[in-house]
């Protein structure tokens, strides 16, 4: 995904100009990656990170290596531009088909740009997998997973057999995956082209056998009809400053008394 902290452009059609935006690992996905590394350490596993984007998005896979991922796959194809969540999930599920065996697919809860939380469940639907969203804890025993997912004001305890798709909540555990990072080793490894090729696969829609009519703007059932900046409101704020704090509070209270909002009724007196 593009770095939302950087000044990213918006295309004339209202989609995000991902080619111009700086790339970074989606912050929500770091929790998914951490969970994957945790499973690898506790239960034994190989971790493959899959991403979709323009060619420079390969940086994200290298970032993931530094945190303990074993393999990386980048799906890159100009025809993917302007894919909505349904089309994105279609493309990513084709990558999973192409890769073959897996036990667990982990995704972040959502991205920080689109923020929809839809792609994970939509991959699960297309792969006919059970899904656990908002997962904050999991343990594995054989082929059985015990999980806890967040719900409003509490949680659910669940049990499911592999294979499964899990979206990881960011309240789960504080991020500490960098503890396992080995930046120097990754740099050394990537100096050898044959090793880099073995670890990173770059695939197109043709490689994975995806139907081009189901991705991009053609395969997306939604489009951005219009965008507009969230208007700068205000200018009407009455600010008390440059005096003693006691005086400022008094002036505020005078205002509250005068403006007839009946603030008093909400106070325990």
């Amino acid at each position, binding site marked *: 995904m593009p770095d*939302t902290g950087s000044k990213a452009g*918006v295309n004339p059609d*209202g989609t995000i100009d991902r080619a111009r935006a700086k790339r970074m690992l989606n912050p929500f996905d770091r929790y998914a990656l951490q969970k994957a590394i945790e499973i690898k350490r506790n239960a034994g596993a190989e971790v493959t990170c899959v991403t979709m984007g323009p060619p420079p998005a390969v940086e994200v896979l290298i970032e993931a290596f530094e945190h303990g991922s074993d393999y990386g796959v980048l799906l890159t194809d100009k025809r993917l531009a*302007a894919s909505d969540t*349904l089309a994105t*999930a279609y493309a990513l599920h084709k990558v999973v088909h192409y890769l073959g065996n897996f036990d667990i697919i982990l995704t972040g809860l959502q991205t920080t*740009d689109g*923020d*929809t*939380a*839809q*792609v994970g469940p*939509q991959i699960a*639907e*297309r792969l006919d997998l059970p*899904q656990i*969203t*908002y997962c904050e804890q999991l343990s594995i025993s054989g082929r059985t997973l015990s999980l806890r*997912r*967040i*719900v*409003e*004001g*509490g*949680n*659910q*305890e*669940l049990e499911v057999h592999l294979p499964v798709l899990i979206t990881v909540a960011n*309240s789960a555990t504080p991020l500490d995956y960098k503890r396992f990072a080995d930046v120097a080793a990754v740099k050394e490894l990537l100096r050898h082209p044959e090793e880099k090729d073995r670890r990173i696969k770059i695939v197109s829609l043709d490689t994975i056998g995806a139907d081009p009519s189901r991705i*991009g703007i*053609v395969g*997306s*059932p*939604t*489009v951005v009809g219009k*965008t507009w900046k*969230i208007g700068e*409101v*205000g200018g009407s*704020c*009455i*600010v008390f*400053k*440059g005096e003693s*704090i006691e005086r*400022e*509070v*008094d002036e*505020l*209270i005078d*205002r*509250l*008394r005068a403006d007839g*909002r009946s*603030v*008093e009724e*909400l*106070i*325990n*007196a």
Partner: protein
Amino acid sequence: MPNPNNVAVVAEQFHGSLQQITLELIGAARFLSEKLGTGVSCFLLGHEISKLAEGLIHHGADEVIVVDDPQLKEYATLTYRRAVISILEHLGTSPPIVLMGSTTIGRDLAPRIAAYLETGLTADCTEFDIGDYEHKGKADPSKTGTFKNILYAIRPSFGESLKARIIGPWKNPQMATARIGVMQALPLDALRKGAVQRVSVNFNQEDLRVKVLKTVRDISVSVNLTGAKVIVSGGYGLGGPDGFEVVKDLASVFKHSVVGASRRAVDSGWMGDSHQVGQTGKTVRPDIYIALGISGAIQHRVGMANSKLIIAVNKDADAPIFKFAHYGIVGDLYQAAPLLKNALIKMAREKSLR
């Protein structure tokens, strides 16, 4: 027979009580259905929940389609997915619009239904409307045309700096989820009448792959933030977790008050994420919102800017919150909060003596 042209709402209930988001969605659906000249249908799923149908009608639904089944006692993705799909199949024709809540249920279920139906879904909407659309794009000739009376699903986008109108007129249902606390519920009308229909569902083994062992839910935690009359929130300017003692202390002055927090305060582990207001937290509109040490970045602002009275305390006179708050105090919050607390109590006492 139920009317498949109605705007549909997938209702949420937890252990037999209707969730506020559902009443809000019915309010939004009524607004849309009046523009379309149709009605509102609610899908009600659960076990021994048929009695809730009346409440949905009293809040604005014209029809309620009920699936009452022991398999639906606890929410699980695949069983609820099967139930919604069965209702849609029962209707025969797809409703024009299906709305769900941006909750841990709606955000879990809606994308699966949309993918199953190969239809569009817009997440976390803050506004809905009906309007026309002309598609001129050349990249996709199959989409070109003029479309009347389609759903405008409006949501913040790209770090909340933009608003986007998302449309998907090519296929029904047009699906969307709405944020909690944004849409307006209609007042209860106990005389309202409507139709109730039951639909039965055949679950298969595949639908039962996830076993729900237990659901623990403290409703007060979740309802409080969106339902609170007064929210006192703390931000990164508190400087540390102990700062929330000052926030709580000020909140204690008010009736029906709750403590809120900015994303940075939650990310720093100073407060639990159920208290978070803003982009990844809750959207709130209390009567009074007091922000202590919150700069007012856009991702916080969209979650609370509709509060009726916003009072901000921040030592940075240039903080963006002073652009949209109603009143601001520039200064040290640790000095201001206790003074404000005492002054508010005094103010209320004087009023009650008069």
